[in-house]
């Protein structure tokens, strides 16, 4: 068992510390109650689609809370959905055939093009309450977060070692016990890292989902994103600074209070036979004790509940086995499955039919236009990727091969990466809007800001993984300068670079929707491209164009993944893998 966090402190300090913690907990509970009250009042209140967004710093704590609740709910929803999706895909071979390719495609559909449909649907469903719009934005953030978590869970489940599975079977684990004692723990580390990525992506889209125009309707939800957008629109520098600092504070706090402790805790789920010596250092953890609130909650509430559920299910299963020695429920299940599949097919057919009819209004000229803008965005995305790679590769290699530099640079880079690019975008626009071709630069810098970090962190990891004997060999053979890069560094970081670029490429395409078209200071600024076509179509309510352009973007992303990245990935994992 873990030592209580205060064990090492002298007695006097311990009392003061305990007192401080009590006060902090009391304040926290008080604030939480108020938060629930405020959110309830706002959500259940009458619909105010065009809320007046305050520009006062005093409004920021409440706005931050609103945004945080949106993100948390969306993340909770994503986690539950992803667990279900991954479990289904991994446990049924028939479902797997459909679900895994579907995941690949869903991942490539730009989130923001869902925006009009989801919003209109939610507002239509719950017309008189604010909760309709709120649910709409939560659903949108959800669609941006869920896929990578689902994929991570699925692939973890597929890689559970055979003997562990056999142990679970021979010792008669039921489905539930297998899930909580084998599947879920085995997948935990992947789930944690992907959750962190997803939540970071959530902040990115939150900015766009809190304030947008849909045809003649202008939606504004109080939150950090709308605060920043309004501030930028008004050119209110003071408010921009306040908003950005509130956002950074929130993200840093979340990182230190939630994610770091969870990462340390997740270490026990590492599937290794020997204890590793390096632990994740965390200064803040030492301050609040080794377990944060989240983990205490897990120990005190969740774990006992899980155990008693396991027992209940086990007893139930035993009784069922005693009563029915040979259960035979094969045939009704197959029936149900057939009906389900038929329903899905009919639904799909209906949807495709309507989509085609919708798009048949478009002329050939329109499609040429769409393809042209797809080409423009293609050039922009890849230019951004190239620029990203050009600076991150040397920087990442420098950081990765110099531990002293890494100690300083890595936390800084992590902090920079955690600021959602969409929050910075209004500020960037403010700088570039008056330059010639300014929007072009601004659009590319948003793509760059949103995606370069994936490349950087992967390159750092790659450079750190170069074995020192290879470096020494390179030194002995007198490889210097370019030769050293060509023969050692580039091949060694290649698999990592590809991994980073795959993620960055998908992200950049998605970012184009925000980057190429923007409401700014009361007018619309845009540059030609597929992203701006999607945004404009949703602005003006042209659903045929929206549908067609979304399909084109999804197809392009899937094609690029299949034709370029997957091949490079295979090459990377066969030829450039450093095997020991």
């Amino acid at each position, binding site marked *: 068992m873990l030592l209580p966090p205060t064990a090492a402190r002298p007695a006097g300090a311990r009392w003061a510390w305990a007192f401080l913690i009590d006060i902090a907990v009391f304040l926290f509970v008080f604030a939480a109650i108020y938060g629930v009250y405020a959110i309830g009042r706002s959500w259940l209140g009458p619909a105010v689609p065009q809320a007046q967004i305050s520009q006062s710093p005093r409004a920021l704590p409440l706005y931050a809370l609103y945004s945080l609740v949106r993100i948390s709910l969306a993340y909770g929803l994503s986690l539950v959905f992803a667990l279900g999706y991954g479990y289904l895909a991994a446990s049924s071979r028939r479902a797997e055939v459909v679900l895994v390719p579907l995941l690949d495609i869903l991942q490539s559909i730009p989130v923001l093009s869902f925006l009009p449909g989801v919003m209109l649907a939610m507002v239509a469903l719950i017309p008189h309450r604010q909760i309709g719009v709120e649910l709409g934005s939560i659903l949108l953030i959800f669609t941006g977060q869920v896929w990578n978590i689902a994929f991570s869970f699925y692939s973890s489940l597929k890689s559970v070692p055979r003997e562990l599975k056999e142990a679970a079977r021979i010792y008669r684990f*039921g489905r539930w016990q297998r899930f909580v004692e084998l599947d879920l723990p085995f997948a935990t580390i992947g789930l944690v890292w992907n959750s962190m990525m997803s939540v970071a992506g959530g902040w990115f889209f939150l900015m766009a989902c809190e304030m947008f125009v849909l045809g003649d309707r202008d939606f504004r939800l109080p939150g950090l994103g709308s605060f920043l957008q309004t501030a930028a629109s008004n050119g209110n520098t003071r408010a921009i600074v306040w908003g950005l600092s509130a956002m950074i504070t929130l993200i840093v706090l979340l990182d230190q209070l939630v994610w770091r402790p969870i990462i340390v805790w997740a270490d026990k789920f590492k599937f290794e036979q020997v204890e590793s010596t390096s632990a994740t250092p965390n200064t803040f953890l030492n301050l609040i004790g080794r377990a944060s609130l989240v983990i205490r909650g897990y120990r005190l509430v969740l774990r006992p509940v899980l155990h008693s559920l396991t027992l209940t299910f086990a007893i139930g299963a035993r009784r069922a086995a005693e009563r029915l020695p040979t259960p035979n429920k094969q045939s009704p299940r197959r029936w149900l499955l057939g009906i389900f599949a038929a329903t899905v097919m009919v639904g799909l057919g209906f949807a495709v039919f309507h989509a085609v009819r919708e798009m048949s209004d478009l002329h050939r000229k329109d499609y040429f236009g769409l393809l042209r803008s797809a080409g423009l965005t293609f050039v922009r995305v890849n230019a951004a990727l190239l620029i990203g790679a050009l600076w991150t590769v040397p920087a990442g290699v420098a950081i990765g091969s110099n531990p002293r530099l890494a100690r300083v640079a890595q936390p800084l880079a992590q902090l920079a990466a955690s600021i959602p690019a969409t929050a910075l975008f209004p500020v960037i626009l403010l700088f570039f809007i008056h330059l010639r071709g300014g929007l072009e630069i601004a659009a590319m810098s948003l793509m760059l800001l949103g995606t370069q970090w994936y490349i950087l962190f992967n390159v750092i990891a790659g450079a750190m993984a170069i074995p020192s004997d290879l470096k020494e060999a390179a030194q002995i053979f007198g490889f210097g300068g370019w030769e050293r890069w060509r023969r050692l560094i580039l091949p060694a970081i290649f698999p990592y670079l590809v991994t980073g670029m795959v993620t960055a490429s998908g992200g950049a395409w998605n970012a184009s929707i925000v980057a190429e078209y923007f409401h700014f200071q009361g007018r619309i600024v845009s540059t030609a491209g597929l992203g701006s076509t999607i945004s404009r179509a949703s602005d003006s309510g042209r659903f045929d164009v929206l549908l067609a352009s979304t399909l084109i973007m999804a197809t392009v992303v899937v094609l690029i993944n299949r034709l370029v990245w997957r091949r490079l990935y295979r090459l990377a994992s066969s030829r450039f893998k450093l095997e020991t």
Partner: protein
Amino acid sequence: MLARMSTPATAVVPIIEVRQIEKFYTQPDGSRVQVIAPTDLAIYPGQILALLGPSGCGKSTLLRMMTGLAPASAGSVLWHGQPVRGEDPNVAIVFQSFALFPWLTVLENVEAPLEARGFPSIERHRRALRIIDAVGLDGFESAYPKELSGGMKQRVGVARALVVEPEVLFMDEPFSALDVLTAETLRGELLELWLGHKIPTRAIFIVTHNIEEAVVLADRIIVLGKNPAHIHADFNVEMAQPRDRKAPRFLELVDAIYRVLTHPGLRHDLVEAALTTGPAVQHRQIMLPHTRPGGMAGLLEIVADQGGRVDLHRLADDLSLEVDALLPTVDTAVLLGLLRVEEGDAIITPEGQEFARGDIQTRKKIFRNAALAHVPLLRQMEQSLKAKSDRTLPDEFFRDLLDEHFSDDEARRQLETAIQWGRYAEIFDYDAATGKLTLTEV
């Protein structure tokens, strides 16, 4: 004095019995790949039964079919003379890789099977603590597996298996991931539990490739032959426990089992199959042992050095190798006609002598001739390549051919081995990046 009866009286009903159980894979074209030939086997109460054989021969598959983990392709599994129905039989497995849940403490690991059976928490604790105490894990209840040494981990594996009070304890190479001393300690402890009747288990079934381990522990030893797996020999061990490894009877038995394992009959079959089958596409493929030519060269040098004839048992001992490490290399040399095996002795042939004396180019030439003469697959590969105008074929072409005869995994390994040999023999070149085989022009 015998601690347990080693030859069951005819009236005793076996706890588990398999009848004509077999495993095969059906290929898309309807042909079968036989992994385990129809086999009868019974586990009687009061016995430790050891299943011995070289690795990859199907021992573990047989164990998994007996425990119900893997379905048999045909045949039946009887539990106390009755077909298994409804609830699985009460068995437990100790795994080679321990298969502990790393996120659960020792106590939680041992309690997990009881939890699955719906035992309330207090009863779970009581039973788990008692068995943890019995295997000598006292004081480690709250440790996580990664804090433990290999031996301690396997003690947890044993405790977890025994806590369900299985009628038959299955052990799948339980000590082969441990160092020699630890393995010996654990064997001793297992015997102590068993002979002292400290556990309610009525029979132990242990799969191993270590002959001495089998002779130390078992009352009955079954030797499996491979390709496809079949029962090759059945020994009753009528020696009192504890057994003295230096005793003449012990050494005699070890030697006898060695001879059975290296029985020349099987390998003669292989060589004959290689000689009689023509180059037609639809012939029976023989299974290549997965070895590298370099290893075989080393073996031949040693045999030549020692006068051309060595006792395989002594040789393995001198090299501190286990049977399953040495046998594939011996198989390779026998297959290529460079070595003969008689009565557990390896005898070098004239070609083998020449090979052992030769320099690298000579060796390659001998290897090439022998490979083309005795390995149908390589001959077939050479002819297929010759038939093409550009002398090049993708490796998938040969994979497909092998798929007709082997399971997917085995087909891949067969091709890998064939490519290794073919490259060494300079029959063809192989480009791993493109997967292309090109005939080497001589």
